[in-house]
C-alpha cells in the first residue's frame, strides 16, 4: 500500500503540474487556435483531477460543459472571428501578448500577484484542519431529500434555490446573446451520406445516454446538468453536420423550450406552496419524483439553452414566402 500512495501522490503532482503548464501555455501561446486547443486539454485534465478528488459529478460536468461545450464555443467564436477577417493576415488577428505599458507597471503587477500567491498559500496552509463542512448534516437529512446522491440532494433540495437562480443565469445568457445578434443567413450544408448515417445512429444513442445520466443522478454521479450537457452536445453535433432549426421552431416553440425548465421549477414550488409547503420545500414522500420531474424539464432546457449558446445569436425565422415546406424538409431529415 505504501507504494500505491506514493504512486498516487506522484500522479497527483504530475497532474497538478501538467494543469499549470497547460494553463500557462494556453494563455501564452502565440496562436489563438493552439491556445484554445490547449485549453480544452486543460479542461479534460481538470476532469481527471476531479475524479482524483472523489468528485465524479463535477468530473462529468467539467468534461461535458467545462471542456467540451466551452471548447466548442471558443472554437466557434474563433472561426467567426477569422471569417470576418479574411482580408487581414492571420498573424495580425492573433494579437499576442501586448507590449508592457511600462516596465514599472509590469514589475508592480508581478509583485502584487506574488503577494497574492503568498497570501493564498499562507492562508490555505494555515487553514484549521478540522473543516468538517456540512457532510454530517447532509448525511442526516439525505433520506428526507428524496434522492440518495448527496450532490443531487444538495443541488435540487437543500440548495435548490441556488440552482433555480443558476438556471436563471443560463437563461439570461441566452437572452443576452439573442439581444446582441441575429444569426446570419445560415448556409445550409448538405450533411452527406456518411455523416447523415452516423448522426442517425449517434443522436438517438446520445439522447439515451442523456436520459441515463439523468436517471442515475438520483443515486450516483450524474444529474440534470450533465444530462443537459450531453443533450447539448447532440445539438451541437447536429448543428455542425448542417442541421438547422426549422422556421416553425425558432418562434415560440424554441422560446418555450428555453424557459421550460425554469417554468416547471417555479410552477412546482408554487403549487406546493398552495398546499402549505414553504418555498422550494419538497415533501419527503414526493421529493424523489418531484426532483426527477424538475430534472427532466431542466435537462431539456439546459440542452436547448446550451445549444442556443453555441448558435450564438437569435435564429431569424424565414420569411413565410420562401418555401416553408422545403425548409422543413432540409431541416430535420435527409434530403439526399
Amino acid at each position, binding site marked *: 500500500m505504501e507504494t500505491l500512495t506514493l504512486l498516487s501522490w506522484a500522479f497527483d503532482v504530475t497532474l497538478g503540474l501538467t494543469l499549470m503548464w497547460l494553463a500557462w501555455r494556453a494563455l501564452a501561446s502565440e496562436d489563438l487556435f493552439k491556445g484554445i486547443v490547449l485549453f480544452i486539454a486543460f479542461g479534460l485534465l481538470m476532469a481527471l483531477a476531479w475524479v482524483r478528488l472523489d468528485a465524479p459529478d463535477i468530473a462529468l460536468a467539467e468534461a461535458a460543459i467545462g471542456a467540451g461545450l466551452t471548447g466548442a464555443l471558443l472554437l466557434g467564436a474563433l472561426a467567426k472571428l477569422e471569417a470576418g477577417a479574411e482580408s487581414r493576415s492571420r498573424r495580425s488577428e492573433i494579437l499576442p501578448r501586448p507590449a508592457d505599458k511600462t516596465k514599472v507597471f509590469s514589475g508592480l503587477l508581478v509583485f502584487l500577484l506574488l503577494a497574492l500567491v503568498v*497570501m*493564498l498559500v*499562507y*492562508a*490555505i496552509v*494555515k*487553514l*484549521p484542519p478540522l*473543516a*468538517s*463542512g*456540512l457532510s454530517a*448534516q*447532509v448525511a442526516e*437529512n439525505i433520506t428526507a431529500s428524496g434522492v440518495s446522491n448527496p450532490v443531487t440532494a444538495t443541488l435540487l*433540495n*437543500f*440548495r*435548490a*434555490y*441556488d440552482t433555480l*437562480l*443558476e438556471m*436563471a*443565469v443560463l*437563461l*439570461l*445568457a441566452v*437572452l*443576452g446573446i*439573442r*439581444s*446582441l445578434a441575429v444569426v446570419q443567413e445560415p448556409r445550409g450544408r448538405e450533411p452527406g451520406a456518411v455523416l447523415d448515417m452516423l448522426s442517425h445512429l449517434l443522436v438517438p444513442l446520445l439522447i439515451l445516454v442523456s436520459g441515463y445520466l439523468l436517471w442515475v443522478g438520483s443515486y450516483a454521479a450524474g444529474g440534470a446538468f450533465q444530462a443537459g450537457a450531453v443533450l447539448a452536445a447532440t445539438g451541437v453535433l447536429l448543428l455542425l453536420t448542417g442541421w438547422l432549426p426549422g422556421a416553425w421552431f425558432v418562434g*415560440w416553440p424554441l*422560446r*418555450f423550450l*428555453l*424557459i421550460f425548465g*425554469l*417554468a416547471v421549477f*417555479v410552477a412546482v414550488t*408554487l403549487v406546493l*406552496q398552495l398546499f*402549505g*409547503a*414553504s*418555498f*422550494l*420545500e*419538497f415533501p419527503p414522500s414526493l421529493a424523489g419524483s418531484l426532483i426527477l420531474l424538475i430534472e427532466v424539464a431542466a435537462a431539456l432546457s439546459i440542452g436547448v439553452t446550451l445549444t442556443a449558446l453555441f448558435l450564438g445569436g437569435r435564429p431569424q425565422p424565414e420569411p413565410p414566402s420562401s418555401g416553408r415546406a422545403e425548409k422543413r424538409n432540409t431541416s430535420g431529415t435527409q434530403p439526399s
Partner: protein
Amino acid sequence: MLAQSFSWQVTVIILPLVAALLCFMLPKWGRWLGLVMAFAITGSVIVLAYQVMNQGALRYAVGGWGAPLGIDLYVDGLSLLMLMVVALVGLVVSVYSMAYFKAGKAVHFWPLWMLLWTAMNALFLSADIFNLYVTLELLGLAAVALVALAGGVDALGAAMRYLLVSLLGSLCYLLGVALLYHSFGTVDIALLAERVESTPAVWAAMALMTVGLLFKTALFPLHFWLPPAHASAPAPVSALLSALVVKASFYILLRLWLEVFSQDSTAAAQLLGVLGAAAVLWGGVQALRQTRLKMLIAYSTVSQIGYLFLVFPLASLMAWQAGLYLLLSHALAKAAMFLAAGNILCFGGHDRIADLDRVAQRLPLSLTAFALAGVSSMGLPFSGGFIGKWMLLDAALQSGQWWWVAVIIVGGLLAAAYIFNVIGHSFTRAEISHEAKPVPAIMEWSALVLALAAVLMGLFASWPLAVMDIGAPFGGGGS
C-alpha cells in the same frame, strides 16, 4: 400553516422572475406585462415593508432546511430599505421605459430588466454568501446585456470591459467564499458572524472579497470601467446601473464588514476611507472636465460612491446610517439625473454640455429634475443628500477624524461646480434653436418624480432612519 410557509420575501423574488419568463415568452405583450408586473412587485415590496415594520426582522428558511444546510432569506431594516429604493426607482424606470424603448429593443429590454430586478431582490434578501455569489453573477450578466442593448462601438466596448471586470470581481469574491466555508463550515452570514475568528484565511478572504466587490462597486481606482459603461448605456439602463446595481455589491460589502469582518480591521477600514476620499476628489475633478452630460453624471457617480466608503473608518452607528442615507438619496437623485439626461439626448440628439442651452430651455421639467437631483448630489438642502452629508459630518467630527470633513467639504464644492456648470448653460439665451424631437411627457415626469423623491428624503428623514433600526443591522440600538 399556509400563513407560516407563505412569505412575501419569496414573492418579491419570484414575481420578477415570473415576469421575465412571461415577457420573454410573449414578446408582443412584453411592455404591458412588464409594467403590470412592476406595479405588482412594488406592491408586494410595500406589503413586505408593512410586515417587517410590524414584526421586526424576518428570517425565512428556503425549503424548510435552515442554515447551515439550506439557504436562509433575511430581511431587516437595511435590506428592506434597499428593496424599497429598488422598487421605487424600478417602477419609475419601468414607466419611463414604456415610452423610451421602441418595439425592437423593448423585446429584449423587458425580460433582461426583470431578471435584473430578480437578481437585486434576491441579493438584498439573501443571508448566504454563496447564494450571494449566484445573485451577483445574475446581476452582472443582466447589467452587461442591458448596456450592450445600446449597440454601437462605445456601448459594446464598455459592456465588454464591464463584463470582464464583473467576472473578475465575482471570482475574487467566490475565492473568499471558499476560504470562509472551509474555515467555518458554513456559508450563512449569521452563523459565520458567530463562528468567525481572526485567522490568515479570514484575512485573505476579507481582502479577496473586498477587492472583488470593490471592482463591482467601482471604487477608485477600480472605477475605470464605470464611466464608459454608464454613459453609453440606454438612459433607463444608465439610471438603473448608477442608482442600483453598483449599490448592490456595496450592500454585500457592508453586510460582510458589519457582520463577518467586524473585528479589528481598523487599518483596512482606514484604507477604504482613503480610497473613498480619493474617489470623491478624483470623480469630482473628472466630472468637471467632461464635455458630455452623461459622462459627467457617470463621473459624478464615481465621486458619490466615494462618500459611501468614508463611513468605514468612522464605523459609528451614526456613520453607518449616514452612509446608507447617502446611498438611498444618491440612488434616487442619480436615476433622476440619468433619466433627465436621456430626455435631453432624446430631444436634441446630443448631450454636449456646451450646446445644452438650446435644448434645456425647452425641456423645463427635465431640467428641473436634473437641478433638484443635483441639489441632492451637492448635499444642499432640502434633499436627502443634505441629511446624509449632515450626519456624515457629524459622525466625522464626533470621531475626531476631522480630515474626512475636509474631503466631504471639497467633494461638495466640486459637485456644486460641475452641476452648476450644466445648469448655468441651460440659462443662457440661445440664438439658434435645434431641430428637436418631442419627448413624451411621461418621460419628463418620470425624471421629475424621482428628483422630487430625493428632495422629499430631505424633509422626511425620521421615517427611513427608524426603518434602518429594524433588526439593528448596524449593531446595537444605542450610542
